[in-house]
């Protein structure tokens, strides 16, 4: 390292013209640690909490290994204390007018500004990241986040009317995520009136410092509580009664495990997983600028992950040459040096990168490393991996920091297929000077954020999130606020966990259908089929299930669908998806309105079907009428999607797009058999999804009646309806890898199973936890929550200039 080498004289430097060390003093960070006697506990309820008889771990300088402090590890009772404090603080905090909360957030922003030097030196010292990035990027952004959300709090009563804060929020951070990730999430939560308990990994003092800064503002001590402890405390925090939502930032596998653990535990789970990004470089790009984009993405300490780089074949050689040339000029070293590009990320990140590179090499990849980086651990040189065989495990695995995996593509269409083929979907950039091509790729990518001719831009006003395995939790912008809100009047989320639920056998076997006794009266019509791919077909099992009316008499037979039918339905939905997404919202609205008209034409039949199932005539009429209204309302709403954001410091717009989830499976509730079915269907279709529906189990016939119109009116495969044993169908849908989202309205056990099973492809799920809904009320049936859930956001950055 530079410090240990003998210092060259000015005379020597005059000849070599080399860079020298630009050390940043970390005296103030050490002084702060001294105020705690180098002994850090937790920060709860505005006070330091240092309980006795706890394990402790050392907090070390990742580069020198010098011990900076001792950090206490929390135990379950510390978590309980923190959640209690947050719960008490919630009473006051949520009751405040938005303007007062705004004031408080602004005071915290001022506080950060006053102590920014302490903040950035401490962060860089402990994490090893380049101080330049923390100082010029993270700290100003942290302040900006507070300011933006203060404004949101100020306008909350007006803009977010009809929504209320959820309550106590648990935030779990994994070691690779910086304090900024915490800021992204606590700011909206605090702004809307929630209080937060943050569980940080051991030996991360910066969140504790932030909590102390917030606590020293006085007025509301318990709104931000930080405890440090092992990852195993995550489920403990999440299952505390009172914790309404848990947001987790970390590795994909950890997120998956947490999803399974928390199934049925009550708290909603938001996941922000992985850190890999993607860069698509076309032949029409400014290659040198794109190379800088690669540096921004992987080799500048901005992101915690690696980069997947897709390069058009015609510029492959040129790009690789420029990349390698650029890599040679990168400087790595101690993070607290003002002139290094890359710091170190500790031994764990080093080993992860080394393991990946070693495996890639053994699988036949070319590995290029360069740059002025110290050769000893924990430093890892910028690494470029190419020629990785398409089938090798490394191609599928997440690329770690600071590795870039380059692969060629021939056409833009192929690039899109490759990019969308990866299981991750956080962020991507497209480099092309051809406007049409750039927009085509930008719209086509299935990710949360797309930058055109830039990479890694961030702003508090722009929602940041992902899809697929990157999780569907959002932060920043309006989407970040809705993460911590629920429609007013929603009951608190309680645990509905059932010990007896066996995930292995739930809905596995279909109870066999036996003849339902003597058929009295006129012979019932032929069984209803399954609507799959635009026409009715017989179920694979070739059996039907009887449906009884309110008096216990046989009403009719519906098809007994199974796994095979679900597979067919999902496939048909996938085939119909591109056509439906391509439709303009106007065209979608026209179809929904036509369906409403058809439904009204069937009013008499539908009313009598509902009546036979025990609905009063008056209520049945209302249900049919409301159903038609829902179709029209969602059709109209389809036209007002997304908007343009104007972002400070960026010339050009950022588009907030609302894109369909894809193939959406909906298991409809038993109550309101027609209205719930139509409401869910209409919202899903209006937002461009294609659907596989399981109608009400007790009373599927009204929905199936409507299917006759849908088969005639709607494009084939857009809506697929499968009847049968609900648990069995739910199991098939929840475990299906190509179902991109699932809404479940049914039993508590079913809800728990759906949450558990969604961990497979991490599809977003929405469950009713066994609680029936009042679908005839505006808040539920046509509420904004349904609209929020029916689409996902994408932020498309379009910097401009010539």
């Amino acid at each position: 390292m530079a410090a240990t080498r003998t210092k060259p004289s000015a005379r020597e430097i005059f000849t070599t013209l080399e860079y020298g060390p630009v050390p940043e003093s970390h005296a103030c960070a050490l002084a702060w640690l001294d105020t705690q006697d180098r002994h850090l506990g937790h920060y709860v309820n505005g006070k330091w909490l240092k309980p006795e008889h706890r394990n402790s771990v050392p907090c070390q300088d990742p580069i020198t290994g010098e011990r900076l402090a001792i950090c206490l590890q929390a135990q379950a009772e510390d978590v309980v204390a923190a959640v209690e404090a947050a719960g008490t603080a919630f009473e006051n905090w949520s009751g405040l007018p938005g303007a007062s909360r705004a004031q408080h957030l602004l005071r915290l922003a001022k506080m950060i500004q006053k102590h920014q030097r302490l903040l950035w030196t401490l962060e860089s010292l402990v994490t090893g990241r380049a101080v330049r990035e923390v100082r010029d990027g993270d700290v100003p952004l942290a302040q900006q986040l507070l300011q933006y959300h203060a404004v949101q709090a100020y306008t909350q009563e007006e803009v977010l009317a009809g929504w209320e804060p959820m309550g106590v929020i648990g935030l779990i951070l994994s070691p690779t995520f910086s304090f900024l990730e915490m800021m992204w999430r606590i700011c909206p939560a605090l702004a809307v009136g929630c209080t937060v308990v943050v569980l940080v990994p051991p030996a991360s003092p910066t969140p504790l410092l932030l909590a102390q800064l917030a606590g020293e503002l006085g007025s509301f001590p318990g709104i931000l509580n930080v405890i440090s402890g092992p990852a195993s405390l995550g489920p403990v925090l999440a299952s505390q009664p009172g914790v309404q939502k848990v947001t987790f930032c970390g590795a994909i596998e950890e997120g998956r495990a947490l999803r399974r653990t928390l199934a049925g535990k009550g708290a909603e789970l938001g996941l922000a997983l992985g850190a890999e990004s993607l860069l698509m470089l076309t032949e029409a790009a400014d290659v040198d600028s794109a190379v800088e984009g690669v540096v921004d993405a992987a080799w500048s300490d901005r992101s915690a992950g690696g980069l997947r780089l897709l390069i058009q074949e015609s510029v492959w050689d040129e790009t690789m040459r420029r990349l390698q040339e650029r890599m040679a000029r990168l400087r790595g070293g101690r993070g607290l040096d003002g002139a290094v590009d890359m710091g170190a990320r500790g031994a764990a990140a080093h080993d992860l990168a080394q393991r990946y590179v070693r495996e890639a090499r053994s699988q036949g990849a070319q590995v290029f490393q360069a740059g002025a980086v110290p050769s000893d651990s924990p430093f890892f040189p910028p690494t470029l991996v190419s020629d990785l065989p398409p089938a090798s495990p490394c191609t599928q695995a997440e690329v770690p920091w600071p590795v870039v995996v380059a692969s060629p593509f021939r056409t833009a269409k192929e690039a899109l297929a490759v990019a969308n083929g990866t299981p991750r979907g956080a962020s991507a950039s497209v480099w092309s000077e051809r406007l049409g091509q750039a927009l085509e790729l930008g719209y086509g990518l299935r990710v949360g954020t797309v930058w055109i001719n830039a990479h890694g831009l961030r702003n508090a006003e722009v929602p940041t999130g992902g899809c697929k395995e990157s999780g569907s939790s959002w932060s920043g912008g309006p989407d970040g606020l809705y993460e911590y809100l629920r429609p007013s009047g929603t009951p608190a989320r309680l645990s509905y966990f059932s010990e007896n639920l066996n995930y292995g056998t739930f809905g596995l076997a279909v109870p066999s259908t036996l003849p339902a006794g003597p058929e009295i009266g006129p012979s019932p019509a032929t069984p209803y089929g399954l609507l799959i791919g635009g026409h009715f077909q017989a179920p694979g099992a070739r059996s039907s299930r009887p449906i009884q009316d309110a008096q216990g008499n046989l009403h009719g037979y519906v098809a007994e669908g199974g796994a095979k039918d679900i597979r067919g339905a999902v496939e048909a939905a996938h085939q119909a998806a591109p056509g439906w997404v391509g439709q303009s919202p106007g065209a979608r609205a026209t179809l929904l309105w036509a369906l409403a008209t058809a439904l009204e034409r069937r009013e008499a039949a539908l009313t009598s079907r509902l009546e036979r199932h025990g609905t009063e005539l008056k209520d049945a009429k209302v249900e049919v009428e409301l159903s038609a209204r829902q179709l029209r309302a969602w059709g109209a709403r389809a036209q007002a999607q997304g908007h343009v954001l104007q972002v400070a410091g960026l010339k050009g717009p950022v588009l907030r797009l609302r894109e369909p989830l894809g193939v959406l499976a909906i298991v409809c509730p038993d109550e309101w058999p027609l209205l719930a079915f139509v409401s869910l269907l209409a919202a899903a279709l209006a937002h461009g999804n294609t659907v596989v529906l399981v109608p009400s189990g007790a009373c599927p016939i009204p929905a199936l009646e409507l299917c006759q119109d849908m088969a005639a009116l709607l494009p084939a495969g857009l809506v697929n309806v499968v009847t049968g044993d609900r648990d069995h169908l739910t199991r098939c849908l929840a475990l299906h890898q190509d179902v991109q989202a699932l809404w479940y309205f049914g039993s508590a056990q079913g809800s728990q199973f759906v949450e558990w099973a969604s961990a497979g492809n991490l599809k977003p799920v929405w469950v009713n936890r066994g609680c029936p809904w009042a679908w005839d009320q505006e808040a539920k049936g046509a509420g904004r929550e349904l609209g929020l859930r029916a689409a996902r956001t994408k932020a498309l950055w379009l910097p401009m200039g010539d």
Partner: protein
Amino acid sequence: MSARNRGTELDQVGGATEEGVDLPSSLHPTGMHTSGFGCFPMEPEALNLSWISKMQVNQPAVLRRAQQIQARRTVKKEWQAAWLLKAVTFIDLTTLSGDDTSSNIQRLCYKAKYPIREDLLKTLNMHDKGLTTAAVCVYPARVCDAVRALKAAGCTIPVASVATGFPAGQTHLKTRLEEIRLAVEDGATEIDVVINRTLVLTGQWEGSDFIKTSTGKETVNATFPVAIVMLRAIRDFFWKTGNKVGFKPAGGIRSAKDSLAWLSLVKEELGDEWLTPDLFRIGASTLLSDIERQVCNNPLSWDKLTSVFLRKKRKIPYWAMRTREKTSSDLPHCTQTSAFIQANPHLKWADWTRERECA
């Protein structure tokens, strides 16, 4: 003159507002030979216009890069002193005023020969390096004066002359060529040619040995984003043909800090091999005095020097800013000088220095 000026109106790549081409002659001129200059077209394979049409520049991305590059590389202490001295060797010490006379040209040439005070160089152990600026740059009519003054000082610093209707270049080709010929006759060994912008704007490019950001007489002169585009073009040209084209930012580079940023820009975009006076020049008139001041302010020089220097820009004594962090024992003259400054608030830094020396 060895005039390797292969073309009179030369390359101008990518940038929008900057014109002007530097044509260094032999880079270490050994004598004066006025061999033919004129329009030698470059070898056909060396300049292929299809590259230019294929070239893509994304302006917002270049702006971001320009911003980053200034924040990501700094040098301190010994490194800063050495880099500043290196920057001196790249300077084309320039005077391009309407009222230039032989006396100020003489002073300019003396400054070119002795750019940094001897005692400062001694503290850095650099006094025996024969440090000079890269060239002096004057109007054609002053070339004679400059050549004479440099000869009298006994040094071989090349004389560069702007020519061809500088700074607009809107004169006839015939008079422009004649201007070059006369300047070379007078002893200029490098000619800064203003290219015909009419040709550029209609897409008719020509090749060059050196490209310059601007004449220094425009409203916008050397800026980082434009320089990035030019440097990348230089690198691409080198990769394609093996020819190294030089780069000269000119206009608006006044502070030592700026000069360091330019050095690191070239180092980052082109590499160390371009950091030689053969391939990199800084056109500047007032930069040198700021560099001298900063070398003097460098902590390395403090304890050895007896004179007082102030930061002109901020009008605050340098140590007054530093003493907050450092103990006054590092700075033996601190108290005394502060008192002096307080007693004479109306004086500018140069006057302070002079008065101090007199006292």
